[in-house]
């Protein structure tokens, strides 16, 4: 038992590192690792993955906020969209077949992966106009980039589209019980044109709230198993703390190169699920 717990712990540390660097919840690693390597049933794997999302978010946010990478205003404002979306998702979950939504959101992710491919040579977004609403909400910001060794000031564009995509991200979370970090990073990076590091850190920051919104339901259903979730939580907390240090020293270009294949993978998986194909 102890050996298994240590193995889950080690896998979770790597999930926390990757999740905190990319602004994803780590569920992308935790769910398949638990089901394929440890033979955990999908129900308890999803419960543990939700714990992983919340642990990555809080664990990484401690450092990201202290170092000024997270844009708290952007995060708080967009959380209106994700939380309303999450409730919408939970309400419609029983009413409609999610297949069409999977296909639509899968296509949206694929589109953003392609949009990101065009940006692979770009370290920071250039000449971004400041959207009127962004100005009213004081969303623009500044952070110190440890890889570039300089302060980076940035504007925020397309607030409405970003807000809309975040609402969609919320629906996905509500339907699936995940943090849907890939959508959050996409909304901020592709639509609102924030620097990638700010998008990733702010996505991380927001994900915990989205996850917590549905965690109660999963706990009550008994999907959060103490034996599986305990090593996942501890491992991910350790990993996220390490990842938050590593990310700041990476170039945005490098983070993007890691991000695109992950995005493609999630997009294809989502569309396959919508079409009823088992991968």
């Amino acid at each position, binding site marked *: 038992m102890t050996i298994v717990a240590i193995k889950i712990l080690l896998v979770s540390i790597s999930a926390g590192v990757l999740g905190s660097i990319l602004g994803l919840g780590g569920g992308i690693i935790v769910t398949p690792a638990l089901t394929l390597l440890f033979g955990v049933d999908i129900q308890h794997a999803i419960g543990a993955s939700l714990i992983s999302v919340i642990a990555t978010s809080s664990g990484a946010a401690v450092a990201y906020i202290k170092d000024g990478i997270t844009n708290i*205003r952007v995060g708080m404002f967009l959380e209106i969209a994700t939380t309303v979306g999450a409730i919408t998702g939970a309400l419609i979950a029983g009413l409609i077949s999610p297949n069409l939504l999977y296909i639509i959101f899968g296509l949206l992710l694929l589109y953003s992966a392609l949009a990101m491919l065009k940006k692979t040579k770009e370290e920071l977004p250039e000449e971004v106009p400041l959207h009127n609403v962004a100005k009213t909400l004081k969303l623009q910001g500044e952070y110190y980039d440890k890889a570039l060794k300089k302060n980076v000031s940035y504007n925020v564009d397309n607030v409405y589209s970003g807000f809309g995509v975040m609402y969609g991200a919320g629906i996905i979370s509500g339907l699936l019980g995940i943090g849907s970090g890939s959508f959050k990073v996409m909304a901020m990076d592709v639509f609102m044109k924030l620097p990638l590091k700010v998008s990733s850190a702010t996505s991380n920051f927001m994900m915990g709230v989205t996850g917590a919104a549905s965690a109660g339901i999963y706990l*009550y259903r008994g999907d959060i198993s103490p034996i599986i979730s305990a090593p996942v939580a501890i491992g991910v907390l350790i990993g996220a703390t390490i990842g938050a240090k590593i990310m700041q020293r990476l170039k945005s270009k490098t983070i993007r190169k890691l991000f695109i294949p992950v995005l493609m993978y999630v997009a294809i998986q989502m569309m396959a699920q919508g079409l009823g194909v088992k991968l």
Partner: protein
Amino acid sequence: MSEMMNKDTQGPSKEPNEVEIFVSKSLRFGVLLSGAVILIGLVLFLSSGEGGYPGDSYPTRLRDIFAGAFDRKPFGIILAGLVLLICTPIMRVGISALVFLKEKDWLYVGISTVVFLILVSGFFFGK
């Protein structure tokens, strides 16, 4: 121009503001507390091999979880720690609202409060 140079060579010029410091500290408190409780529960479980409940079962209601934790049942302690972990982001939203209030940033007091209310109402929708 010389100011620009200073910015580039002397590291971050932007000091974290009060909101950032408070939110970061409250998150660290939540993370350390929940992590410690989960770890204690896990070590107790691994050393005794007993979860404290019949078979592989464990409590799923908040009252039973905390009752189990106070009875020093390993699964009760682990789940209590996980509940604390889940509460950390919700607490963070509430604390942000209070810090924005202190800074008299009314727009963001409103935004944080709305998010907090949506989160709390989400629990009722879920039931």
